């Protein structure tokens, strides 16, 4: 069983509430949920929708074909009607009779029905009720969810929502001969639903992050909200900075003072952080920075998704220094990679950049056994011979790190080129040694990086990075089912590329690089590092994530030409 629900309306009609409600109710009923959010950069009006897919087995991607389309307004119908499956359902006071060639077209007026409960604002919950009715789920989980989220608004609101839910359900019941859900499951309390932003925030909390500074910027703001909501419990200082420059400099200051520190932003804010990134590198202060990508250039499309910043973050800031660039494939990996990022930032005293995107940030995944394999390394601040040399020139390039105020060592950090003590220098031989020392870390760092996820396939190999893993994986499986033996290489740890990468690519079938950007930035990186051409590329840059069926079509097209 694999069902796909789409609910749309305008901003302000509560589409996001629907998404939260459906995802949670379905999860609590024992299903694996995968949902995506599509919205505009405005608070009211326009068009937004959510897709909630669920199944009895784990899901990793969004589909194009829809089983139930619930329309809170006419536009939703016009925009999405072609995606409804033969035999699917359309709910809403939309379209006109002539168009009702669907098996199930129920022209429910959600707002009118909601008015029956007292206010049209309950229309979204009416829609949830109607959907649950068609699915054939009882309202138990739904009721308790409504109680939770509306509790702070008072008893009356909770009651009205429950009524709205029932009215919706009751409207559809007469038309439902057999409910869509065939396999009922008992509530599986071990299922977890979480989105990318929560996962990144959670990763920080689990890492013992003690300082988080950021300036709000979609789609990274959810991390700020999440960490703030747990700051008290975890003892994290969270500060909204006056701008991104302050945000990164605060994080660096906090890290210098001994705290694990992180900041997050999106591309535009990352631009402003570029100088700070170099400061972290030069002062060798551990730092974790999340760039939640959205389409650009410039302000671009604030609420859409993109993988357009890879080349930028690899090269950001003037002159050269080593850094790690990671891009988690899903929330579970996001948690793990953030922990890993903190550990490695500290181990090598370098900045680590985590590339997220709107798709990862806002989408919800479900896990039965969330695997958090990484463990935060306890920081080691031992004692040092005095006078303390912050930048001792060592074979590995890493110097023992002391924290100001925690011992007798005076810790001198400098953004200028400096001597071993941290004092500024104009000794150009020393400069050469210091630059080598910093760059030397890259060799060990390369060894640290894990090989990409790899599944061999004889006919072709789909290559991707970051949040596209799930959709590539599912497209790959469908290809296999159609007799095309497709393999996968998927990068979550992108930079530096691991040492054995050449070997891995020495026996790969027709490589097709799939990216959510125009230029094929991973493909370019591979061309440069491997000195091999990667001519077959699938690139999307409309601000939306790949859907399984679309990707499948595109791969087949390449297949024809390749």
């Amino acid at each position, binding site marked *: 069983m694999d069902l796909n629900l789409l609910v749309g309306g305008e901003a302000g009609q509560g589409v996001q509430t629907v998404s939260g409600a459906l995802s949670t109710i379905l999860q609590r009923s024992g299903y694996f949920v995968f949902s995506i959010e599509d919205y505009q950069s405005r608070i009211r009006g326009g068009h937004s929708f959510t897709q909630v897919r669920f199944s009895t087995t784990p899901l990793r991607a969004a589909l194009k074909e829809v089983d139930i389309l619930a329309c809170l307004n006419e536009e939703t119908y016009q925009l999405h009607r072609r995606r409804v499956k033969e035999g699917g359902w359309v709910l809403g006071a939309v379209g006109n009779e002539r168009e009702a060639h669907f098996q199930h077209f129920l022209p429910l007026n959600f707002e009118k029905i909601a008015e029956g409960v007292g206010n049209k604002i309950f229309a979204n919950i009416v829609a949830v009720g109607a959907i649950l009715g068609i699915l054939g789920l009882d309202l138990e989980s739904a009721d308790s969810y409504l109680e939770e989220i509306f509790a702070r608004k008072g008893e009356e609101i909770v009651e009205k929502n429950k009524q709205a839910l029932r009215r919706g359900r009751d409207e559809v019941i007469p038309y439902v001969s057999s409910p869509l859900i065939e396999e009922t499951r008992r509530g599986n*309390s071990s299922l977890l639903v979480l989105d990318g932003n929560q996962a990144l925030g959670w990763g920080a909390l689990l890492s013992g992050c003690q300082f988080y500074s950021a300036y709000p910027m979609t789609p990274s703001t959810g991390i700020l909200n999440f960490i703030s909501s747990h700051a008290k419990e975890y003892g994290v200082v969270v500060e909204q900075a006056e701008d991104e420059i*302050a945000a990164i400099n605060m994080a660096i200051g906090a890290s210098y003072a001994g705290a694990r520190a992180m900041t997050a932003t999106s591309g535009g804010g990352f631009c402003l952080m570029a100088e700070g990134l170099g400061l972290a590198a030069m002062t060798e202060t551990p730092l974790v920075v999340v760039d939640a990508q959205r389409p650009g250039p410039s302000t671009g499309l604030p609420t859409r998704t993109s993988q357009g910043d890879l080349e930028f973050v690899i090269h950001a800031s003037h002159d050269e220094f080593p850094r790690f660039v990671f891009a988690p494939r899903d929330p579970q990996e996001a948690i793990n990679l953030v922990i890993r990022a903190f550990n490695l930032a500290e181990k090598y005293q370098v900045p680590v950049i985590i590339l997220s995107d709107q798709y990862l940030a806002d989408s919800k995944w479900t896990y039965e056994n969330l695997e958090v394999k990484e463990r935060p390394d306890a920081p080691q601040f031992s004692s040092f011979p005095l006078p303390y040399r912050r930048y001792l020139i060592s074979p590995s390039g890493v110097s023992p790190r002391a924290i100001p105020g925690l011992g007798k060592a005076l810790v001198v950090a400098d953004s200028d080129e400096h001597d071993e003590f941290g004092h500024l220098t104009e000794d150009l031989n020393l400069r050469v040694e210091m630059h080598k020392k910093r760059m030397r870390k890259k060799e060990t760092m390369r060894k640290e990086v894990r090989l990409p996820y790899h599944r061999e396939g004889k006919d072709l190999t789909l290559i991707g990075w970051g949040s596209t893993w799930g959709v590539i994986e599912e497209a790959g499986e469908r290809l296999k089912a159609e007799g095309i033996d497709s393999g996968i290489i998927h990068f979550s740890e992108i930079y530096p590329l691991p040492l054995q990468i050449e070997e891995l690519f020495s026996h790969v079938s027709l490589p097709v690089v799939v990216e959510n950007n125009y230029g094929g930035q991973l493909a370019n990186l591979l061309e440069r590092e491997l000195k091999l051409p990667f001519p077959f590329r699938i690139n999307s840059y409309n601000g939306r994530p790949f859907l399984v069926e679309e990707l499948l079509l595109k791969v087949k097209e390449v297949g024809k030409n390749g």
Partner: protein
Amino acid sequence: MGNLFDSQVEIAWCPGCGNFGILRALKGALTELGFSPEEVVLVSGIGQAAKLPHYIAANVFNGLHGRSIPVALAVKTVNPRLLVIAESGDGCMYGEGGNHFLHALRRNPDITVIVHNNQVYGLTKGQASPTSEEGFVSKAQPWGNLSLPLNPLSLAISQDASFVARGFSGDVDKLKEIIKEALTWRGFSLIDVLQPCVTFNRVNTFAWYKERVYYLDDSYQPEDRIKALEKSLEWGDKIPLGVIYQHQRPTFQDKIYSQIEEEDLIYRGVNFDDLFSRGLRLFT
């Protein structure tokens, strides 16, 4: 002046520069207040003034041009037991770093900000700075600076800064006393220090300042905000020195720590196993 805070680093300032007076005053203040070098963190930006931390034996974060305040604020927040001083030039603090200065006033972190105000960009060889007089001539402004000078004191008082003072590097003893007051003040303290640049500022010379500065006397009440604003506008034939405004209010660190109800961050230690099990409960 054999002193606990003496540093081995060769001083790169011009002979006769006003910066030497500030260095002496600061070292004197730290010594007289009985601090030890490990307790002190000096944060600076980039410029001639910003080299100062290297000339004091203490913890140092010599960061980016304009960005000393966010760093200092974070250091103090993470470890409130440290004495944190942000120190840099007028260009660094009020020009490139203007936004951080402005918003620090709102937060009231318990740090001291010392601005070496030579009314010029020294290290980059003499351009007008935000505090240069209108008409100040330089290679970059051969027709003279067209903007009004920023008034950092009125700016600070307008946003109810906790402690606002002006010093003069030519009077080390008095400057030292002002610094001591600022360092012991709980909350954000600003000292704008008039500092002659003997190489690039031929207008606001030692003599120019000397002729104009005077100290506020005991009758002056630094608690009156409107009076302080009025006093802060005084500039020209007479330039007042001393504490212009002070007003106690809760500090950023007080508020943060009352929220998170924790020990000072860095001392509480992190129990990773505990974090982990608490974390796993979060979503379940």
